């Protein structure tokens, strides 16, 4: 049995992205779920599955159940590890649909991360357990600081400079600049602006770090057979997978043989390409998780777009531009559009497949979407046609 093209995303929803949504995360979640169902030609009473991302939101399936009065919620699931979970929610939905455990599965992310709870700040006092106990007491307390340890080693081993990090930010901001939905619409940056932005945690500068965003996104997954009967234009799910690496921790897997390889992403890539029977050269658009610029470089290598240590050359050669071999983060990504922990990438992937994106790439047949790096992660390959 394979899950290849057994299911499709048939509806998407997305609020505006802002620094202050002015409303609750539950309200935004309901707005995008209703929008996605309407987009698909479905009704709330059709929903019998909900998959949510774990961590950092307080909305549970029973909140959707009560608010929407769902009469028959029979599949519900929460995928762990923060941003690594985004495409994992799609993978769980595909599994449920393929196994007959649900017919219509809603997945979503809703955050007031800018106005209510900023991820990049820490006031954790008191006692900490788990992997945190080896890091927090020493002042290594934020995602930027945890990632900086990997990034410094990557630049050292391959002889790159922070300019290579800057080119990732410049590209994402370029794509965001022409996306009216993006927080950084109309605000491209130059490499010089990147290089003169203030240090956060060396080698990361301010412009290497994701935005904090208020907003919400949702996607509706149904079986491929059902998708063909619905009005919405489907993005078939050629593959969906989760992946892990050895000696895994949440963003601090420092005991690993190499700090320059994303083992979780490599495992996810291998599984996605196996299921889809595709390879990196078959991917028309790539929406790669970009909370911090160096992880985009490592992800490009993990997903096979460049050999180890060579991803910066792709940027230097313009191969990730909208008219390049593999256009990257066409909506502007977390660095330019906004940070919905990977869910904005899924929604943009569907738009690229549908041909409705503002920065539409020509003749898109396949789109790779990936989720958080340096954590147990996930990815999907979307396809215009089932094959």
């Amino acid at each position, binding site marked *: 049995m394979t899950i290849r093209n057994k299911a499709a995303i048939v509806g998407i929803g997305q609020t505006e992205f802002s620094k202050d949504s002015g409303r609750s995360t539950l309200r935004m979640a309901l707005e995008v779920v209703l929008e996605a169902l309407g987009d698909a030609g479905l009704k709330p009473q059709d929903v019998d599955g909900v998959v949510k991302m774990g961590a950092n939101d307080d909305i549970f399936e029973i909140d959707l159940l009560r608010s929407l009065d769902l009469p028959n919620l029979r599949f519900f699931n929460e995928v762990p590890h923060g941003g690594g979970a985004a495409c994992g929610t799609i993978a769980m939905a595909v599994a449920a649909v393929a196994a007959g455990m649900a017919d219509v599965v809603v997945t979503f992310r809703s955050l007031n991360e800018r106005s209510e709870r900023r991820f990049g700040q820490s006031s954790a*006092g008191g006692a900490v357990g788990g992997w945190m106990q*080896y890091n927090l*007491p*020493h002042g290594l307390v934020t995602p930027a*600081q945890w990632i900086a340890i990997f990034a*410094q*080693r990557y630049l050292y081993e391959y002889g790159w400079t922070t300019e290579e990090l800057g080119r990732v930010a410049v590209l994402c901001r370029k794509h965001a600049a022409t996306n009216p939905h993006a927080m950084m619409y109309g605000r491209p940056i130059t490499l010089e602006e990147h290089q003169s932005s203030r*240090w956060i*945690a060396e080698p990361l500068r301010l412009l290497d770090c994701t935005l904090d965003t208020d907003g919400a996104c949702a996607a509706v997954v149904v079986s491929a057979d059902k998708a063909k009967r619905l009005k919405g234009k489907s993005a078939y799910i050629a593959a969906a997978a989760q992946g892990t690496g050895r000696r895994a921790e949440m963003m601090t897997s420092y005991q690993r043989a190499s700090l320059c390889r994303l083992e979780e992403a490599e495992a996810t890539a291998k599984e996605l390409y196996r299921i889809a029977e595709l390879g990196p050269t078959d991917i028309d658009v790539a929406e790669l998780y970009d909370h911090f610029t160096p992880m985009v470089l490592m992800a490009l290598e993990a997903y096979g777009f460049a050999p180890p240590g060579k991803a910066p050359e792709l940027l230097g050669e313009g191969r990730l531009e909208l008219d390049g071999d593999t256009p990257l983060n066409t909506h502007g990504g977390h660095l330019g559009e906004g940070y919905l922990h990977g869910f904005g990438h899924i929604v943009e992937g569907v738009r690229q497949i549908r041909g409705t994106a503002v920065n539409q790439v020509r003749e898109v047949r396949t789109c790779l979407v990936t989720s958080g790096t340096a954590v147990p992660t996930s990815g999907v390959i979307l396809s215009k046609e089932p094959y």
Partner: protein
Amino acid sequence: MGDVARPYPRPDRDTTPFWEAQNRHELVFQRCKQCEAVRYPVGPLCPRCRSFDFDWVVSGGRGTVHSYTVVHHQAHPAFPVPYTVVLAEMDEGPRVIAQLRTPPDGRCEIGMPVRVEWEDHPHQSLPVFVPDEDRGST
């Protein structure tokens, strides 16, 4: 700054001997009694041979900088910036996170030899790294 507590470990039934050793100013690792593999972070089972039997070995406290970050953006009230956090690869194998203490003009470099010194805090003594002058710079 001083009235905001820095985070400190919450020892459990696996990690208590590790943190008690740090309060004695000893950096310790677990060593498997079956296969002699040294492991870190602390855990009940040897991931190599799956034996529960282990003893504690005291690290010589010497290693080299495997990676580091200089933190400039203050994200936590207990940690005034700038400060340097090092991931050191210890001679015994494990990599350990701790802050670097250097002279005022001191820089951190990957490959730099370091050794452990100790700082006492209200809840827990913690290691810091200092340049290991005996071994010079590589």
